[in-house]
């Protein structure tokens, strides 16, 4: 467990994303944060249970991670653009040539696939025609395969399993050129009391997932959500915020019906900024008449 390495959180259009699988597992193991998987292919969106990397983190979680010095936030758009624009000529040339190489490789692979398909269909046709004792089409298909074979330059056909990376030609990818901590956003301590409950719960060893289906902000787990059921449904309130009694009744009732407790909490705003922050106060509510 390398606890010294800070985790890079990319801030892209207001969302906090973590792309690195090692960072994700480190977050989960050490920082009680599991995030929400949001990755999918744009052309073929999958159902949400099949989503993959990256994970998205809530702003208050990110805030807590920064405060505990586990992670740092990078303005990924700015980092990307500056990395692409400030390349020196040599590396620029190398970058362009690498792109070209990859493009050629991709073309090669596509051509190979097409040829393979064509040969398969040709052999099928061949079989059919042979079955019908018609031999006139055979040379033409041979020609076709020969043509596609001619397109294929000499050399070994690339192995199949490397196709995935080969085909992923993203012309504007800057993944090799961005240094990991470039454009790290400054850590500004936020004065607002918002997110203090989340921070408090994370700090005391709880895991939290979004609690929308239980009608609250967080569902709070005593350990990893894969091991435990949630114990609480938590809502955060401001210190002076009026809490409608109907919300307490409804929340307590629903939480008890799903064998949890309704948890509300908040932090008293500190009078002066240099003072030690007052502790978060939490209350759990259960419906007794059930």
């Amino acid at each position, binding site marked *: 467990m390398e606890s010294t390495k800070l985790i890079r959180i990319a801030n892209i259009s207001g969302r906090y994303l973590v792309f690195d699988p090692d960072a994700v597992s480190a977050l989960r193991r050490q920082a009680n944060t599991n995030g929400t998987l949001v990755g999918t292919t744009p052309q073929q969106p999958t159902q949400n249970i099949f989503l993959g990397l990256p994970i998205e983190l809530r702003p208050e979680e990110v805030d807590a991670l920064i405060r505990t010095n586990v992670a740092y936030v990078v303005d990924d758009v700015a980092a990307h653009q500056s990395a692409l624009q400030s390349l020196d000529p040599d590396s620029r040339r190398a970058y362009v040539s690498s792109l070209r190489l990859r493009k050629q490789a991709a073309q090669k692979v596509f051509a190979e696939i097409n040829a393979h398909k064509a040969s398969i269909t040709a052999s099928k046709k061949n079989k059919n025609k042979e079955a019908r004792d018609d031999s006139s089409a055979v040379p033409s298909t041979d020609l076709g395969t020969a043509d596609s074979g001619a397109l294929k330059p000499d050399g070994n056909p690339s192995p199949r399993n490397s196709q995935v990376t080969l085909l992923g030609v993203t012309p504007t990818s800057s993944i090799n050129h961005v240094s990991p901590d470039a454009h790290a956003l400054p850590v500004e301590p936020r004065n607002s009391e918002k997110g203090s409950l989340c921070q408090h719960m994370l700090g005391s060893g709880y895991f939290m997932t979004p609690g929308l289906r239980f*009608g609250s902000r967080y569902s709070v787990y005593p*350990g990893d959500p894969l091991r435990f059921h949630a114990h609480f449904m938590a809502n955060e309130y401001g210190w002076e915020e009026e809490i409608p009694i109907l*919300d307490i009744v409804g929340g307590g009732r*629903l939480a008890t019906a799903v064998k949890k407790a309704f948890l509300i909490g908040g932090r008293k705003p500190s009078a002066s900024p240099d003072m030690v922050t007052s502790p978060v106060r939490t209350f759990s509510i*259960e419906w*007794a008449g059930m």
Partner: protein
Amino acid sequence: MAEMQVQTEPPSIGKASAELQPNPAAPAPAPAKAQSEAAVPAAQQKRGPSIHQIYALPAPIRTFPLPAFYPNNPISLVHVAYAWLGQVFRPPPAEPAVIHQGVWSETTISVHIKDEKSMRALWEQGFYGKGNLSRSEPNWLKREQVQRGLQEVHVSEIFTQQRREERAQAKWERARLEQEVILQTRLEEERLAAEKAKVVPDSTPTFVAPVGPLELLALPNSAVVVSRLESILKPLLLLAPVGPLQLLALPNSAADLARLGKVNASKANESSSPHGSSTEDSEEPRTPITNETPEIFRDDRSVISSSDGAGNKTLKRRKSVRFSPTVESATYKASDPPSPNRSPPVSYSKPSQANGNGNATSQTLPSLPLASVPVSDPIINKEHLQLTPEEAFFLSFGLGVLEVCDPASGRVLSRQELFSLFRQYSYFPPRNGPDEPDLEPDDGFLVHYAVYHHFRSLGWVPRGGIKFGVDWLLYTRGPVFDHAEFGLIVIPSYSDAWWKKQGKKGPRKPWSWLHSVVRVLSHVTKSLVLIYVDVPPPHKFEEGLKKGITEAMKLYKIREVMVKRWSSNRNR
């Protein structure tokens, strides 16, 4: 879109009673027969009349329709003429014939009806109010009689209490069986361990596994306790964690792994464990606890109860498995300490209300003057009916059957006074002082009263819905006939141009709020209806109020939006 209709002052025919009268244009007098019997508490007889007889009248006013005239039956004309003449020469008492008396109570922000006949009448004719010692119907007296064996009738509260006891018993039994299974496996493992220990001779002192229920309960609950114990006990022997309890006690995260260090499995020494920490269910999964936050876990399972909050902190009910040392006391009371031998004897300052004992409940209530009645005496009804401001104002302003007195002076409050009183008290703190801000047209009473009047006028029975986390529950006929089908949430809507210019917006609620409300209601098979009340701008409202309450209330518009889950499979 439904416009609200406000009736004028002495309405001889309530809209809610429309189904009683086939001919609404004939409020002519007729012989008033068998009208007063509804006010008699009919349910006190052994075999009471059916609920359709008891709750026959939908509103606390009478109507006297003429008999129907059939053109093909000339005798019916005679019947009509006879009834009409009878009403002309012997007119029935002017409606409302009975005007009930209520007292405004500032502490509870409700109107109290103390007269027993009025209580029954308002409950049976339209389901107004709630008994202050009952769940809804004011039946404390009946309950008390049943509990003393004087009567044999069905009382819903007693029924509910029995059901809850049965359920608690079943849960207790289930938990006991689970514990037995755990005990079995422990014994088995212990046997295996003993066999192993025979092979490897050890010089450690005799290790007694915690097998009895009391020892199990005495196992440390949290890492805090463990660390405290660690200082007392020297680690005897490092055993591999094999039992379910030891496995569950393993640390969950790296943070408390460091703190726990080497936890010995043989910590269960009953004598050295501090009391009060061992009440939690011992099969609970262990969770990481830091030193700063033990109170979270203490709050975790405790029931928030007002009866024993301040005085005795040690007496906290927990959802825990209770082991009784003897077989005879297999049942337990709600007021018992969680595990009998572990809590110190607590002197009960008050009788616990959690047991649902009517005797105890009545004595703890300070608001009633007749508290010192010996048990052998005939029971005096200590209950009164509480009307919410909306109900009271509908009875007074909509139907004219209620007069509300000021408790201090005994003076009957006029409708205008009542109106402003209820409006003042819909704020918290109430805006009744001289330097308080002015009342606004969107105060809680006005908005809720518009909704209440709207649905009452359409023949529904709205009742307060706080127990389901909504503003109102809508019954088609009343709570004794059927369950409420809808839960209403009232939302003020500022759709007028004046409000828009002011930038006033309705309450902003998150999505999780809607999910919570819908899910609570769908658990009890009700549907959510959002009621948007269009609030008039203040100047229009003030103008209307000068002409009268009716004109002012006419400015409120009500829109209903039903929220329902649409499922493609079920709605084909």
